[in-house]
């Protein structure tokens, strides 16, 4: 079973994403900000991370940079999942090491296709 870490400060988004991912047979964990996510990744190795941009404590971008540079084996595919939909944001995320980008709102089909694109299903 593949594992997914959902990183989002919105409980509602986490709940919806968890529901979608669990119907796709993912083992799901949650984090409410980048710091919590980093702590999780230091003890566990998710296959894919769904990452929000704007979060308190540590933003998605700060998490991504820290994840790629400090975690022992940062092998997870990272899919940004955010309301930031400008090209500059998307390009910055790719440059920082994101594998895919989903602009909110999204539906199950969109997320499923993105997970296929990064090879997680």
């Amino acid at each position, binding site marked *: 079973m593949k594992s997914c870490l959902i990183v989002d400060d919105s409980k509602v988004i986490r709940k919806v994403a968890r529901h979608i991912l669990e119907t796709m047979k993912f083992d799901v964990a949650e984090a409410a900000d980048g710091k919590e996510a980093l702590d999780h990744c230091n003890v566990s190795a998710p296959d894919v991370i769904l990452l929000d941009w704007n979060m308190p404590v540590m933003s998605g971008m700060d998490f991504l940079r820290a994840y790629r540079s400090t975690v022992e084996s940062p092998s997870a595919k990272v899919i940004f999942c955010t309301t930031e*939909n*400008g*090209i500059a944001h*998307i*390009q910055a995320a*790719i440059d920082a090491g*994101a594998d*895919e*980008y*989903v*602009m909110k*709102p*999204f*539906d199950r*089909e*969109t997320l499923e*296709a*993105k997970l*296929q*694109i990064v090879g997680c299903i």
Partner: protein
Amino acid sequence: MSVSETKSYRILSDLLEKHTGQTLLANRHWRIDMALKPLMRQNSIPDLETLISLIEIDADPRLTMACVEAMVNNETCFFRDQANFALLTGPVFDMLREHRMASKRLRIWSAACSTGQEPYSIAMSFSENADKWRGWNIQIFASDVSGSALTQARAGRYSQFEIQRGLPVMQMLRYFDQKGEEWIAKDSLRKMVTFTEHNMLNSARHLGMFDVILCRNMLMYLGEDKRGLVLEAIAPMLANDGILMLGAAETVIGQTQRFKASQEFRGFYQPAAAKAPAQPAEYRRTA
């Protein structure tokens, strides 16, 4: 549901079938409501009965076609059915590349292309392998029965929701420009596809012969009797060694004897009887 409502739904689904061949089973009549609501709001039409009387009594062709277009199913996305699409743009195109080495020409028809995501996906696949196809004449034709879908397809204009359905982010950045909330295909991509309005129930022989015909997720909306007609109509337009691609839930079995399942490429179809050695698809007007 009242008798008059049932009658209204029947009239509207008959209208859809008459113009497109698409059928709406009684248990999917809810789609009519959903599809026509924006049109009715736009024209200040209070209910379906009024709409029908305007169509039938006034015989307003503009309103009739707007109704049909609103009811046509335009569901699509980029690189739909990723695994099958990869088979098409990989091994299938490689086989045809070998067969067409002399003419260096490939003709592809995306039939029932809706808002254009399918032909643009094909065009992007060729662009991604530009070195391999350098010197080739790649012709991508795309058709649909819906004029409004084609208008969007020609413009290559997609909402944020549409653009990210199936399209990898790197290709989105490479082939599309952002304009406000929309994403517009770059000219270089749009120029690779020729769009034309066409009803699949009519002959399209004037388009010439093709090496690949994609007719995906369209037959499933047609009545049983119409599916065979469409397949019979496209059969003479496919080269002897050409490939037909249908939707994942569609088949030729029980519809026509003109195609058979490909032994080499699972989920694809080929002409049932190769009448002559493989020949490149020529652009010739036969009608």
